[in-house]
């Protein structure tokens, strides 16, 4: 049956005016895009952002506030924009074009690398100078618009669900984390000359967190940088599993995360477009877990590559140190004498021992037998600037502790190799990763075996073997290479395929076609890891209410993650699905009060009933226990 459905034109006069105001704001952005020189940028920028905000907020107020509190899904499937009609495609194509420009052609948005920005990016310069002290980039423009969308549509969402306190609090939370953690704090950090870091953007969603340049950025920022780096590691290994154990992955996906934040606010009108078929679920499981494998291998390779040759113990005659200066500071492993000899054999011109701790005396070289190149001890405290210069390949003069002379100069252009030894060795790292993965895998196979479907088991074993195989191969083959790829190339490919194509272009650009959570569901490795914890190691579940379900399908329809909620509810089975982000909308739209998001004891968390509560007790126990 095809119901055409002709709802009344739902947009009232106030909404028309609000739409006009919002469009004026967008028009200003469009005008700037075409490089029309606007005289007072600050004024025009605020006018534009202000109009968009006022338009959206007024529109929402006029849509919801005059109506009763309650579910507002009337005509969702009749409106062109929310039912894959003409306007949905128009919006989808525009969003997609925006993302393509953002990722690959920022020059069309007005980005100028060395010089003053033009176009839309230059319009945002005043705001950028105000917040971080520098000119805007395409990412600053994107971040500003993204934050504006979450704030304005967040308010819309709050008004739409104003009868539901869970939704209100949750939405305030995503609005706060976007504004403070994703937008303002990182920009302030930049202003303070600290690394740009969105603290809530946890690896592997933040796949660049452990990239070499990022680690260098952290390490060169002193104690705060080190704390940030440690926090980044703790986030995924400790904080995340703990919070997911107590609250389910919702604490992240629908309370904190930026992708989730946009999906829950601006994406809310498209939540019902997610594919609910069993076949979609099967695709989802393979794709999202493949992305996890990809990101784990990629990150391991990148860190492995970064750690390469970083330990002074590894200095050998094959270290390729021709005409280079060598600096190291650790005495573990080989004796000092052996290390100097090894560097000498590798062609080093001079060797320095960097004394990092002024309170302890430096080691003395008792025996210079066989050593023909100069060896000196330098104090880290006295040579701070010189070390920094040497690291950058500039000329540097070291103060040294020697009776003969008191300083040595390294000429400009001479390469200095630092073995700073503050890091784990690459052996430790690779084996650490292998042990961690084996422990997780072993624990699941030993204690959660019965909760995995057959194909999930095969998938887990297959992926485990592949990952460990790749890691061992990486370790034993030429360092830093994964099969034929350099680690950095792997990272570039991940960034292109997953970071840009999947999360940006498909994830958001296709909101009006595939629904708001396509990225979170099919692509996000963070969601997959949290989901794994949620499914097997969490107190969270959606409880069903005995026999009250009427199989109406509202819960499944409005599940943005494409979970067929009613399939569980009509069996009286709690919903414990790894993909559930705990948005709470299934519970909200249920007309019979069947669903409740809860944290509770793990005992009896998953149990289905063939015969539901309400029938003959004897029959229930007879059939359900058979």
């Amino acid at each position, binding site marked *: 049956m095809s119901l055409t459905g002709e709802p009344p034109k739902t947009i009232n006069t106030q909404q028309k005016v609000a739409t006009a105001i919002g469009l004026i704001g967008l028009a200003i952005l469009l005008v700037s895009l075409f490089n029309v020189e606007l005289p007072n940028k600050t004024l025009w920028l605020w006018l534009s952002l202000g109009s968009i905000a006022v338009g959206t907020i007024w529109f929402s107020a006029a849509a919801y506030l005059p109506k009763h509190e309650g579910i507002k899904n009337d005509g969702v499937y009749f409106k062109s924009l929310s039912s894959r009609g003409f306007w949905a495609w128009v919006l989808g194509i525009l969003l997609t074009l925006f993302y393509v420009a953002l990722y690959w052609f920022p020059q069309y948005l007005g980005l100028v690398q060395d010089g003053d920005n033009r176009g839309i990016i230059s319009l945002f310069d005043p705001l950028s100078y105000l917040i971080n002290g520098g000119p805007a980039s395409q990412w600053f423009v994107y971040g500003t618009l993204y934050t504006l969308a979450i704030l304005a549509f967040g308010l819309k969402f709050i008004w739409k669900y104003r009868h539901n*306190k869970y939704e209100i609090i949750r939405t305030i939370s995503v609005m706060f984390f976007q504004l403070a953690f994703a937008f303002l704090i990182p920009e302030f950090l930049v202003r303070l000359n600290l690394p740009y870091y969105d603290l809530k953007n946890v690896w592997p969603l933040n796949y660049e967190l452990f990239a070499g340049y990022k680690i260098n950025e952290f390490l060169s920022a002193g104690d705060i940088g080190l704390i940030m780096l440690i926090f980044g590691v703790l986030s995924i290994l400790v904080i995340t599993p703990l919070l997911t154990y107590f609250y389910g992955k919702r604490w992240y996906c629908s309370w904190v995360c930026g992708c989730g934040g946009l999906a829950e606010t601006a994406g809310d009108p498209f939540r019902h477009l997610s594919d609910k078929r069993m076949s979609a679920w099967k695709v989802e499981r393979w794709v999202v877990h493949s992305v996890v494998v990809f990101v784990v291998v990629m990150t391991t390779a990148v860190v492995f590559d970064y750690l390469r040759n970083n330990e002074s113990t590894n200095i050998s005659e094959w270290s390729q140190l021709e005409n280079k200066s060598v600096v190291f500071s650790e005495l573990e492993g080989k004796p000092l004498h052996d290390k100097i000899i090894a560097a000498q054999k590798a062609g080093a011109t001079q060797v320095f021992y960097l004394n990092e701790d002024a309170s302890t005396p430096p080691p003395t070289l008792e025996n210079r037998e066989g050593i023909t190149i100069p060896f000196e001890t330098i104090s880290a405290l006295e040579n701070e600037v010189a070390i920094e210069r040497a690291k950058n390949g500039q000329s540097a003069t070291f103060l040294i502790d020697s009776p003969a002379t008191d300083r040595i100069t390294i000429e400009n252009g001479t390469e200095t190799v630092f073995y700073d030894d503050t890091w784990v060795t690459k052996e430790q790292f690779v084996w650490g990763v292998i042990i961690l993965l084996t422990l997780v895998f072993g624990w699941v196979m030993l204690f959660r075996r019965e909760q995995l479907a057959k194909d999930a088991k095969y998938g887990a074993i297959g992926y485990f073997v592949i990952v460990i195989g790749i890691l061992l191969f990486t370790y034993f083959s030429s360092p830093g290479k994964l099969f034929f790829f350099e680690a950095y190339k792997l990272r570039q490919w991940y960034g292109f395929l997953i970071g840009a194509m999947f999360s940006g272009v498909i994830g958001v650009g296709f909101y009006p076609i595939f629904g708001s959570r396509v990225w979170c569901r099919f692509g996000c490795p963070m969601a997959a890891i949290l989901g794994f914890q949620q499914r097997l190691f969490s107190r969270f579940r959606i409880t069903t209410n005995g026999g009250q379900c009427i199989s109406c399908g509202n819960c499944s329809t409005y599940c943005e993650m494409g979970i067929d909620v009613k399939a569980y509810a009509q069996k009286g089975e709690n919903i414990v699905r790894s993909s559930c982000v705990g948005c709470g909308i299934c519970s909200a739209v249920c007309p019979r009060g069947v669903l409740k998001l809860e944290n509770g004891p793990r005992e009896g968390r998953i149990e289905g009933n063939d015969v539901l509560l309400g029938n003959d007790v004897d029959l229930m126990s007879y059939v359900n226990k058979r």
Partner: protein
Amino acid sequence: MEHIVIIGNGISGVTAARHIRKQADSSQKKITLISAEADYFFSRTALMYVYMGHMRWWDIEPYEKYFWEKNDFNLKNGYVENVDTAAKTLHFAEGDTLSYDTLIIASGSTTATFGWKGLELEGVQGLVTKQDLEALEKNAPNKQECPKAVIIGGGLIGVELAEMLRTRDIDVTFLVRENAFWTSALPKFEAELLSQHIESHHVDLRHNTELDEILGDENGRVRGVKITTGETLECNLVCIATGVKPAISFLQNSKIETDKGVLVNRKLETNIQNVYAIGDCAQQREPIGNRPPVEAVWYTGRMMGETVAQTICGTPWEYNPGPWFNSAKFFDIEYQTYGWVQPARRRKDFENQFHWKSADEKQFVTIAYHTESRKFLGINTFGIRMKHKTFDMWLREERDVDYVVKHLKHANFDPEFYRRFEKEIQKEFYKNEKNVII
């Protein structure tokens, strides 16, 4: 191989089929589901959401297409005109026949009407079947073609229709025979609050008003209704929502014994061997507890399906439903009930009712209990969700009302962070019950 034929693919028939299939694979039992209404099982209670644009048709089908193949259910689209129990054969309106070994009648309900003049006019309809929904889409596509509608009957289907039509801005006049909405099932305290809520949705709710006749124009289309006060109301659509009755007219010429519905014993057996009846169309020879002999409720159909499957698979089982419960939604107000809270006309002297409502009247509760024994009889909650499991347990354990009121918070099923009202309810309850020791 035994051929089990089920007339009807609603919740009762499909549940029976599923539970039979759980115990007997297709080499043991062949299962055929017959329907003239829809190719696939759908949620009848969700019809309203399709008209309101919340869902598409296939969204209200509880099972994907593969489900029917996977379970090896034969689906037949046809209208059974006659059942020949002697020859164990069904005769279809389309002319063909089908023989069975075991027959389950799960043919559901149809709109109940009361002999009004003008029922045959175009633009007069109920809302029970898929065809009714299609008719409504035709009769009331929008405000332009259908500016005014009249709904007859103050019950669940009536209020659903009012909500549906209001989403298309159609003016609705809602005729209710009683002095408040659904007093046939609810205490007046609640019925009046619901009447206010319905009126707040711009429905012209007329209490104490009955239909006299439906008026048509020269083209055989409805043009209005005359009500018992003599007043005439112009309208383009008349919705009959005065309840449902078993859809069993096709059994008229069969040997199967019927009254209002198909008469069955506690094992859901009819007077003919190997013929069973379940769901809305079945009528218990002896009522079970306070339950009416014909129960047109979603979950009772499901429970009868669960039960009859045991009998058919060799474990004879009596239909023995647990404590009564139900739920509904009236525009924005959710309703749940556990145990029995009787409306005025069925309330016995021993039943005392405690009423409470929140300051903004968005939540209200009635608790019924035995005046002397203080046994808890039942609860109606509006705007507050309750846990079925907890009340089912309390009712089976025959807890007293003081225990229930004291432990009310354990039965709460509202979403997290919702405002809780247990303390207010307890305070009010103890204020009214001075003799209770706190």
